[in-house]
């Protein structure tokens, strides 16, 4: 249990997808104009990461990693299909995103309209593929750890996008120098938030 909490806190604060690795910046910058929309996208990313990371964990453990196919036949024990990781992970991510799109369109058409093109673009959000690849690299021992890592990464991304959206909403009323208005000041604020998040790196978990 302690291990799971450690993975969760670490993936949110220490290994934050946005502030530590700068992954998923495209939709982070484009959909962070209002807190409401960014909350919706953040929740969708948590959902997608929470499903794709454990799904990809199972695929990696039982199909792709060296010796994974030995459960089918001992003769296949020597096979290493890890070269298929990228294409398999992306296929799973694309399917789950399609599923999420259908669910959101059915139950929240308003959110579906406000997310617009960025909802299908979650499929190519590098934070999602990054989550699966980091999971593969970390060699988690069970699916629980992988799920907690996926959810934690999603929550970290959610925190980042909601934080920047809240700041941008307030920035509308600030006297920002003309050349920095818009994306310029957003990049600077993101950098400052990244520096602030670096303070968590000292935590020993």
């Amino acid at each position: 249990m302690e291990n799971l909490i450690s993975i969760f806190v670490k993936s949110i604060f220490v290994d934050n997808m946005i502030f530590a690795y700068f992954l998923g910046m495209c939709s982070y910058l484009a959909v962070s104009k209002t807190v409401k929309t960014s909350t919706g996208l953040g929740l969708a990313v948590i959902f997608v990461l929470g499903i794709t990371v454990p799904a990809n964990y199972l695929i990696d453990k039982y199909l792709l990693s060296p010796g994974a196919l030995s459960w089918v036949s001992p003769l296949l024990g020597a096979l290493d299909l890890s070269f298929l990781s990228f294409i398999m992970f992306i296929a799973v991510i694309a399917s789950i995103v399609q599923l999420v799109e259908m669910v959101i369109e059915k139950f929240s058409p308003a959110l579906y309209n406000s997310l617009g093109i960025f909802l299908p673009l979650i499929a190519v959000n590098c934070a999602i593929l990054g989550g699966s690849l980091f999971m593969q690299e970390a060699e988690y021992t069970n699916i629980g750890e992988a799920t907690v890592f996926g959810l934690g990464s999603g929550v970290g991304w959610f925190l980042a996008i909601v934080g920047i959206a809240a700041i941008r909403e307030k920035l509308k009323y600030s006297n920002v120098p003309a050349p920095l208005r818009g994306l310029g000041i957003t990049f600077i604020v993101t950098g400052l938030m990244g520096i602030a998040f670096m303070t968590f790196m000292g935590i020993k978990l």
Partner: protein
Amino acid sequence: MILLLSNLVVILSAILVFLAVVSILVGVLLFAKKKLTPQGEVTLTINDDKEIVVEPGSTILQPLVTMACFYHRPVVAAVHAECVNAKFLRVAALFWPPRSTSLRAVSKPKTGV
């Protein structure tokens, strides 16, 4: 020969694994599509006299434009609402001023002079 055989095993198993996983994903997506997206056709009835049969899932404006039904600007703005799940919709009751009524007649009558 042994090298060739082992490569063949790797290639064949990679193809099989890939096909199996993709088939499962496609199956899940088709099942979800069947359960989540509206099926069949939608009938739009305009002013009780004109019926259009359209595919569900797009905005209500789309079939109206396709059928060359042109409206006053405020009506078009109102029609922009989504109509995903409606099976039967009375456009007349919801948005459309009666055909014989012009916009000026619908707007508030001027008082005074």
